[in-house]
């Protein structure tokens, strides 16, 4: 929308709509010779590839005009890359946006111009130990999908049935005087989290103010709706995230019985789902995993499926495994290097996200004490495997950094596991699903499986600072137009991608890449 404003009709004086069409066709033709993995430019007329100087030479000889790359166009007349408005839009389908020009003119005539300012960098005031909330909220505020929902009238606050209740109460009490007290209390309890969230989104996006925003209404709604987390005090960000999206879903819940999935499930021995929420938040935040237990004796498969809002990874186990592997490697290296009198190479074991996910989805053995096979009707050893069946649009990866440790006296004490976990900027969840793409699948039947279907991009990193499990400070790193910022309550500061990747992440939020093609 903003891109279309004040743009010249063409990318340069040499480009016209015919050439643009030609370029489009050239790009979509399978024999254009452009390798999608590399940056290459080929002449539009004769498909001659080359560097800019060689293309310039070619153009002066042949009077050809343009060279086409995968994402850009080189113009011989300008000796420069040109960006035509018609070619920039990524070919997005704007079915609903491009309704009519009438609407647009009506909107511009009746709305105030959006003031300029540094956008997307509003801090959030700490309301008194609410950094757990602020960190998660910054993630939500910076997510284009959620922003679209809350600012695009996804939740109509003026007609919200939950928030309206108190107003109704006044009318009702006039009519029926003896409004019972417990009914009053029931009404009082209803404060809508989605309304609080909408409130916050509209507040945060006001760019003309350098002052931070505050989430007072949301905090109150959160306390009312999540009684176990109410009260001033430090809380776990992941726990709050789980509760808040659950409450958001409750605010707009819609249930239906999925037909398609059930028939597939029954064929595979998975108990059918009788009630499934189809609300927006379910679609955004909830995935489903499938866990199979296969009896070692009779090989009976028992399957069950559960919803998840975050994938919890066992960080401690992974660190241990990594350390052991490093020790073995070091020992092996040391024994090999003794003759050469070299120092064994110091390997620092940093687990990475892929290893964690692999161990999350790997089969794990169950001892006979843990499993009772119904077919054999006896306790059997078995293997259990959890894999992802349905992936959410916004995926929360939770690195378990808090646990309990038994002290010498036998008392269990909370403990925090510190240390780095390597995480990628882009994450392909394909291998961790119930149908991992085989290495051949992408080449042989590319029509059926989309290579990018389960590709995720890192959106936000929430970090817990402090050595203790019981206290500390949360701050978040969020991406605003491909630049990373650190959101530490009120203070928002610019940072680099390298710095983000260096963090000891506690929560990682990835969002589905195919969203941009919707």
């Amino acid at each position, binding site marked *: 929308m903003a891109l279309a404003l004040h743009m010249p009709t063409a990318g340069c004086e040499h480009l016209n709509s015919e050439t643009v069409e030609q370029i489009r066709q050239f790009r979509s033709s399978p024999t254009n010779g452009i390798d999608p993995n590399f*940056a290459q430019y080929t002449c539009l007329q004769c498909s001659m590839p080359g560097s800019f100087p060689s293309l310039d030479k070619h153009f002066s000889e042949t009077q050809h005009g343009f060279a086409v790359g995968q994402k850009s166009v080189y113009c011989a007349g300008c000796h420069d890359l040109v960006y035509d408005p018609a070619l920039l839009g990524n070919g997005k389908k704007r079915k609903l946006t491009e309704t009519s020009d009438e609407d647009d003119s009506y909107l511009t005539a009746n709305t105030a111009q959006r003031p300029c300012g540094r956008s*997307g960098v509003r801090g959030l005031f700490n309301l008194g*130990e609410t950094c757990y909330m602020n960190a998660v909220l910054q993630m939500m505020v910076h997510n284009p999908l959620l922003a679209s929902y809350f600012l695009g009238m996804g939740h109509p606050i003026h007609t919200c049935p939950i928030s309206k209740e108190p107003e109704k109460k006044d009318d009702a009490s006039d009519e029926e005087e003896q409004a019972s007290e417990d009914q009053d209390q029931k009404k009082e309890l209803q404060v809508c989290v989605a309304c609080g969230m909408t409130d916050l989104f509209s507040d945060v996006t006001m760019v*003309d103010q350098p002052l931070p925003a505050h989430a007072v209404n949301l905090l109150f709604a959160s306390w009312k709706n999540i009684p176990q987390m109410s009260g001033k005090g430090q809380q776990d960000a992941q726990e709050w995230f789980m509760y808040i999206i659950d409450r958001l879903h409750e605010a707009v819940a819609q249930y239906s019985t999925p037909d398609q999935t059930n028939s597939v499930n029954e064929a595979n021995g998975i108990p059918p789902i009788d009630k499934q929420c189809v609300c927006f938040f379910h679609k955004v935040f909830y995935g489903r995993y499938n866990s199979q237990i296969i009896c070692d004796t009779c090989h009976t498969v028992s399957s069950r499926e559960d919803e998840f809002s975050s994938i919890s990874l066992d960080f401690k186990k992974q660190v241990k495994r990594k350390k052991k592997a490093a020790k073995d490697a070091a020992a092996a290296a040391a024994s090999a290097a003794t003759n050469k009198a070299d120092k064994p190479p110091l390997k620092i074991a940093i687990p990475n996200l892929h290893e964690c996910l692999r161990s999350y989805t790997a089969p794990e053995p169950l001892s006979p004490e843990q499993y009772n096979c119904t077919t054999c009707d006896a306790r059997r050893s078995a293997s259990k495997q959890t894999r992802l069946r349905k992936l959410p649009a916004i995926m929360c990866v939770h690195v378990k950094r808090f646990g309990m440790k038994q002290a010498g006296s036998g008392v269990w004490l909370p403990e925090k596991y510190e240390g780095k976990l390597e995480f990628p900027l882009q994450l392909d969840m394909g291998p961790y699903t*119930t149908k991992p793409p*085989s290495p051949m699948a992408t080449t042989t039947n590319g029509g059926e499986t989309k290579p990018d279907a389960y590709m995720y991009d890192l959106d936000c990193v929430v970090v817990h600072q402090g050595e203790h499990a019981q206290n500390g400070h949360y701050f978040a790193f969020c991406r605003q137009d491909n630049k990373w910022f650190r959101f530490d309550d009120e203070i928002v500061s610019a940072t680099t991608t390298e710095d983000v990747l260096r963090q000891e992440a506690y929560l990682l939020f990835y969002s589905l890449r195919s969203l*941009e093609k919707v």
Partner: protein
Amino acid sequence: MATRRPHGSLLPNSVLDTDLWKRFYSDEEITADIPPPVKASTTMATSGAADSKSSISLSVADQEQAISYILDQSIESILHDILLDIHQEEKIARMQTAVIELEQRPDKQKSAHDGDNAEDEPVESDAAILEESGQYQLKGNPMKTIKHIRCPNCRLRRLLYPRVGFNARPVPDPTEQYCKTEPMIIIDKHDVHGQRKKGVKVKGQAKGKNRKKNDPASPTSENSDPLTPSSSMLNDSFEFKEIDYPAAKCPNRDSHLGDHWKSVNVFATHLNGSCYLKKDRAAGREANAKIGGTPRDSRASSPKAGTNGVKRKADDETSGGNKKKQKLGEVKRNDKKGGSGPSRLKEVNNANDRSAASPLKEVNGDTISVTPTKAMRDASSEPTLKLKLKTGGDATARKKPTKMGKKA
């Protein structure tokens, strides 16, 4: 492997697409169920892949050549993508500027010519031309024809470098008004607007700020830059504001008559207390006593805390210079005592008391206060109130360990 993608094509979040969620919600494919696992999924289909791979054999020289080709191409592509992003952003901004400058032209021409003949002249600048069809067409390369970048929204010139901090440059023309979308400011302990958290003192800038205060002629807004030419110190013309805590309306309106406003930094405390959860001071004290965190009669013993009194007296007697030195090290401890100490001391030295009061605020402002246990947490909300009221000295005595706990 993931396909190559420049960051520029990621979903931007500065442009709001209000229908994205509807499209997402109606898209049934996007988060569709993945087919359930095949019952005998243990066998791996590796044989086929191995066959096809083994059929190709490369000599060492060929492999070397292939590797160096791929490496070259990859590095080239990575550099290309980075540069393309920047070039595209810059050029599009300039293309828009060309149009904006031309769009503003007709008004100027009409006012100048004051007649019909203005319409006959083609509306054009060095960079663009308005065609008869009403469309704007570029002339030449905007990278060469356009000197400044204008904001497509407010049509004011954009600042290309921040006013202060990392990568700062003097404002090109201090008399001109610039678009408010300025580059992000990067200074330690400051946010992107050049503001800092309330109570955070920064060595270099504290000085600059004081100078600012002494100079009454200087404007407070950062936009109306002072007309005085910027000297060697860039910081002189920039005011580092402190973020002040605004008040917010309490959403728990049932418990109050009319609106109730509270400073945002104590909001959780406010809701926690008499307003909503009723976990007020008395309740906190009772709970504390129950679990044996702080004895109920702890207040009785606090005035006797001899060490406090002695230290305070010593402070009062020392000269100003000496005190400042001490401040660096023991600011919080001493000043807190000053603030919440017995009123007798306040009378002794008024000025000293005032100086002691401001770091006190700093303590209050530090809302990310971290307490070791839940029991202490309840206790910590209590002293915050007490410090403000400057009552009993035990507040400091109890507050101290919690603060220490944070640092530990």
